């Protein structure tokens, strides 16, 4: 289903997002030094502190004036200015496309907003639409339009395969940064391994759980042919009131399981109702997730 970029992120909302500042501490060091200072010590230009000299330190950082005054070798430390990395992992499986892709729409709008914030703050934004997309990386605010275009051209298809998709989307080696997963998490526990993988890779991981209340609703009293939208498997079942209630409870239990898994993996978890306004949801998410300062 083709979308327009303005549907994902309008100009006014973009200007508001510009006033938000991405929390640098949660961004990893990138490939080039950027605008955002991190607490990592390194060869930056911003003085951070002194410390006692140890063998191996670069003699260029010895503060010789202090040595003359104190007769002790002190080494200056500087904060490294790094380019922040933002990894957006958007679930576009067929379950996200139910009911005219309502969940996918909400996920793309959220991804557009978060990604726009990252690009405004010169973060390297990698946007992966899984399954089937390793995800291009966008590095400047000038690439916002391309970033939005990338999001707008996607459509729901296939079955969600979290771990393979995440493995393909992350660069090799330990990468520090923020990973934001947007999904309805309708899978059989695969998402837990995938989130653990992100954490293992060193990403500060956020899980945004897209929830459509209609997924838990079913009208009792009918003979239904239930079709799994991702696998195509079917099940004929007459649904009575008891079964309908049990199904609602099972969906709620599934949601609670996803949340508890995230918390056990120290993954920030937020449940987003697709009927919530996107702008308020984005701001709340960014604040609650401490992604902006």
């Amino acid at each position, binding site marked *: 289903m083709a979308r327009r970029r303005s549907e994902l992120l309008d100009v006014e909302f973009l200007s508001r997002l510009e006033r938000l500042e991405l929390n640098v501490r949660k961004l990893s060091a990138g490939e080039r030094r950027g605008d955002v200072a991190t607490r990592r010590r390194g060869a930056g230009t911003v003085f951070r502190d002194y410390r006692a000299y140890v063998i191996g330190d670069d003699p260029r950082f010895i503060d010789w004036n202090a040595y003359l005054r104190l007769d002790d070798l002190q080494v200056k430390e500087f904060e490294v200015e790094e380019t922040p990395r933002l990894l957006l992992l958007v679930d576009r499986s067929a*379950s996200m496309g*139910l009911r005219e892709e309502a969940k996918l729409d909400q996920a793309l709008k959220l991804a557009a907003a978060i990604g726009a914030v990252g690009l405004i703050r010169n973060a390297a934004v990698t946007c992966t639409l899984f399954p089937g997309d390793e995800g291009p990386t966008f590095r400047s605010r000038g690439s916002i339009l391309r970033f939005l275009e990338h999001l707008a051209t996607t459509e729901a298809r296939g079955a969600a395969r979290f771990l393979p998709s995440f493995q393909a989307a992350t660069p090799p080696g330990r990468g520090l940064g923020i990973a934001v997963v947007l999904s*309805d998490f*309708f*899978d*059989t526990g695969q998402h837990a391994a995938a989130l653990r993988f992100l954490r293992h890779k060193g990403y500060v991981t956020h899980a945004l759980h897209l929830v459509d209340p209609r*997924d838990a609703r*079913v009208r009792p009293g*009918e*003979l*239904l*042919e*239930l*079709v*799994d*939208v*991702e*696998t195509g*498997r079917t*099940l*004929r*079942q007459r649904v009575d009131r*008891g*079964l309908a209630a*049990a*199904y609602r409870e*099972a*969906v709620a239990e*599934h949601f609670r399981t996803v949340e508890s898994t995230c918390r056990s993996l120290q993954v920030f978890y937020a449940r987003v109702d697709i009927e919530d306004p996107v702008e308020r949801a984005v701001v709340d998410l960014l604040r609650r997730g401490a992604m902006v300062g």
Partner: protein
Amino acid sequence: MIPSLSDIQFSDPAWLDALWGLPVIVALYLMRRRTARVFVPHLPIWEGVLERMRSRSRWLRTLLSILLQLLIFTTAVLLLAGPYAERDVGGEGHTVIVVDRSLGVRVRGAGGAPVSEAVLEQARELISQAVASGSASLAFLQDGVRARVTATRDPERLFAALDDPGAARGRRDWDAVAALRVAVGPTSRIVVVTPFAPDPGLGEALRDAQVLVVRAGTPQPQAGVVGVHREADGVKVRVDGSGPERQLVLRRDGVVLTDVGVKPGSEVWIRIPADAGSAPDLVLEPEDGFPEDDRVPLVLPERQRIRVLVVTDTPTPWLDAWFKASAVIDVAGSSRTRSTQFREWVDDYDVTILVDDQQELPLPRGRYVLLASGAPDLPIARDVRRIGASEPVKTRREDPLVRALDLSRWEIEKVARTRARAGLEVVVDGSTGPLISRGSTDEVKFVDIAVRPDPASSTLPLLAAFPLMLEAALVELVAREREAGPPVLAAGGTLALLPGEEPVLYTPGGAALPPLAELPDATGYRLPERPGRYWLGDSDDARRIAVALLDHPGRPMEPPAGAQSLPGFPERTVRASLRWALLWVLAAALGLEWWLWQLRGTD
């Protein structure tokens, strides 16, 4: 060889109507609930829910399945054993309900309504009881046993026959009931509904388990004429039945001619007056519960015109005028003679009228009207030397001689003094002796009128009643034909035809009735049930007969024993097989077990 469609026929084409079931099948297919297709985000959630729910009920299904298998096995074993149950049920049989519709049920009951209504009501009740225990037939006891409805279990058909039973008529033929008992089979019973007791002779024969006489209604005591025997001057009437003494009245055109008291069970003789005409009625009064047998029509022979010999020595213009106008006198056959010559002619005339003639010798044998005349040996003596005015002082108003005479206008200027002797019946007594009287001796029967038929003697010739009085005197004196006339025949009885007569009756109005039915033994023809006078032919000289309800059934009657219920037929034992019930149980258990098996397959 394959037959063409046109060659195909059906031995039972009624089953082809079942082809209308085809659209029903299509309609059911179109109306069936279809499966809704629903896309779900994650089918394993559904599967997990179903698994949990099924696991909870699986043990219950297992328990139920075991019980069902036990039931299936037990039912199969019981089926092989051929179970049945025995019970006693009320017996069934055929009931012949014979309703009394004979003439006797017309008798009124205690409430004033005919007992036939009570009989019909009792019959309806018995029909309801009879059809509850089998089939029933309906017949009327009416000159035998007449079948109306053959064996049926539909009470409405039987009730319909009772709704239009026709007129009650005919005899109550108990012999026919006894014959019916022989005709019906041993599983049938006969119920006779009647307000009357069976004939005593048949009581024992009917006292059988198959024959039940149900009495209905309470007839009033009543009596009726059961026999009329005509004689020359009267009729001998036998009255039978029960009740108090009643009056037997002879009426002509509603006028009482004569009457006599009569007790039921007795016989009386009643004189036929001269003015009774040819068709008077005998009536028992007052009316009782069955008035039909209280009235008997009589048919008397027509009177011939009377030949009169007038004996006078003087002109009698007033008498002559009356002769010509009289409807009873044979003018051509009548004659006139002098007083000295009449004796040799008396026998040739019916009545001799002496006018102002005092005979010195006794009158010869005959009938006389004496007008201011006299003769020896008569119970009346007239002194012709003492003539003077007179006036009526005492009269018998109902006597036919003076019934129409206005005595107040009878002014008498000249009349001989008269003296009555023993045997004289004075009709009008005057101040100078009897004015009008009748009497008789061994040889002579006479009517005496003391005045001359002359306006100079009295105003009698001027009165309009004078000719009537003379005619009444003539009619009274002239005997009827010696033949007593036709008898009174019993309604429904037998009529023997005379040579030349046809078996067709005509009413007095000239209408022909349906031909009479000949009796099976060819001894005669059956008379109609309706009383009345009939002509045996349409000519003037045809024989006339009178038909009355004589000796009709219904007497004697006994008080009814009240409504009775039909005894049931003997009970019988019915063996009811339980196989079908067990088959149903087995089929239901198998179906339920199959359904459980299908559920197990989906686990």
